[in-house]
């Protein structure tokens, strides 16, 4: 994950700028009176005592075995805390793989149906590349943008020296005056989404500027979703 982006202003001048996450205020957390609480993962069963294995072992006598004894409990393992682990893969016949598996990408439609299978496409981060993030010039009023897009995250642009302070302060002033957000894009034409890490999610970037005397806030609001109603078929699949 990058802490720097390469961005151009309305005049096409570009600079490398620091970014910081804008985080929500601290929230209440679970605890106990007169002590501290930790959330831990632990063993509930050993490999031979999972529900699936016991079903295989006892078949139709599974319920009787549970009544007569405790076959699901392995006293050597149960309750042991699980700390650091490493991801491994099991083959289709449930054997531990000692070589890295192959990968494919499966693309699903919004209704949950499979759209296509294809070899994985590696996507590089593009916010700190040779081609700067472009100021597209397309401005959207704040009152319209907040009713049209869902902003998932915000990063704050921060200068690293006097020159980049002037660069960002000027941007913030211009945007504040217009009460609008400017759409930012990547690529030669500035039409591609912003990708902050390899194989990461693509975001549309909307830049907002605020000033207070000689202080500024230049906020890059990231959206990956419009405020739209799903088609009835896709809404049926995952309603809660």
């Amino acid at each position: 994950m990058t802490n720097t982006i390469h961005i151009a202003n309305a005049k096409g001048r570009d600079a490398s700028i620091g970014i910081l996450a804008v985080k929500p205020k601290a929230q209440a957390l679970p605890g106990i009176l007169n002590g501290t609480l930790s959330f831990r993962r632990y063993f509930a069963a050993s490999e031979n005592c999972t529900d699936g294995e016991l079903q295989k072992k006892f078949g139709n006598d599974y319920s009787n075995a549970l009544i007569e004894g405790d076959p699901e409990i392995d006293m050597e393992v149960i309750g042991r805390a699980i700390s650091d682990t490493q991801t491994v893969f099991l083959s289709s016949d449930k054997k531990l793989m000692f070589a890295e598996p192959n990968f494919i990408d499966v693309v699903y439609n919004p209704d949950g149906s499979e759209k296509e299978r294809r070899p994985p496409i590696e996507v590089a981060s593009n916010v700190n590349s040779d081609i700067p993030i472009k100021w597209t010039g397309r401005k959207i009023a704040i009152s319209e943008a907040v009713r049209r897009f869902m902003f998932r995250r915000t990063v704050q642009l921060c200068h690293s020296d006097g020159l980049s302070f002037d660069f960002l302060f000027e941007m913030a002033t211009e945007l504040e005056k217009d009460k609008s957000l400017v759409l930012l894009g990547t690529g030669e034409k500035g039409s591609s989404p912003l990708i902050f890490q390899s194989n990461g999610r693509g975001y549309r970037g909307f830049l907002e500027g605020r000033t207070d005397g000689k202080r500024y806030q230049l906020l890059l609001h990231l959206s990956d979703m419009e405020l739209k109603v799903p088609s009835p078929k896709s809404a049926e699949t995952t309603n809660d």
Partner: protein
Amino acid sequence: MAKSVIVSLNNQTSSFSISKIDRSKLYPTRKRIAIDENGLPCTRASIALDGSQVIKSGMTAQGYFSDEGRWVPKDEVVGINPDGSLAELYPSTLGIEQKLEGPVNPSDILSFEVSSVYHLGNEGVDDQLQTELTNGNIFRFPFNYGADFNLETAYLLSNSEGTFCLVGNPKLANWIEEAAVFVPDSLVVSDDDDLDFEMV
């Protein structure tokens, strides 16, 4: 089915059905799958760093533990505010009338971390509220889907697609002065498995 969102503006009550929406309901999503030498899907598992156990699905549980290692049942868990005081447990707001605040400044939503988005269906909306929403006005009200130690905020708004409720918590950006020194922090932008971004 979830209870309704009930809100009031100028003592006139409106009721909405609620249905959660996310990216996967609007755009195609991608899932990267591991396959073995026969082209069949593999299962993801973990291995303890000492190699003693391969941890498969169904072998683990999770819970709260005290300093002494005692498992703590849920009814003993309380909420602790960032200042160390005891937090109040807020019940679900669904099915309970909530007073609307506003119209609010649209910029408020830009200082807000959205955790959930709901599409709201009309179950009986007051004419005045409907007019306000159609005119682009936005309202705020307290919201909790379930009981929680934090009371979230919801923004009620409408566009040409329908009426929506954005739920989350406020966030604050810092003012930056010329003398400020940039210190990088660790940004949390999830490496999710979605791709095409069919918008704008």
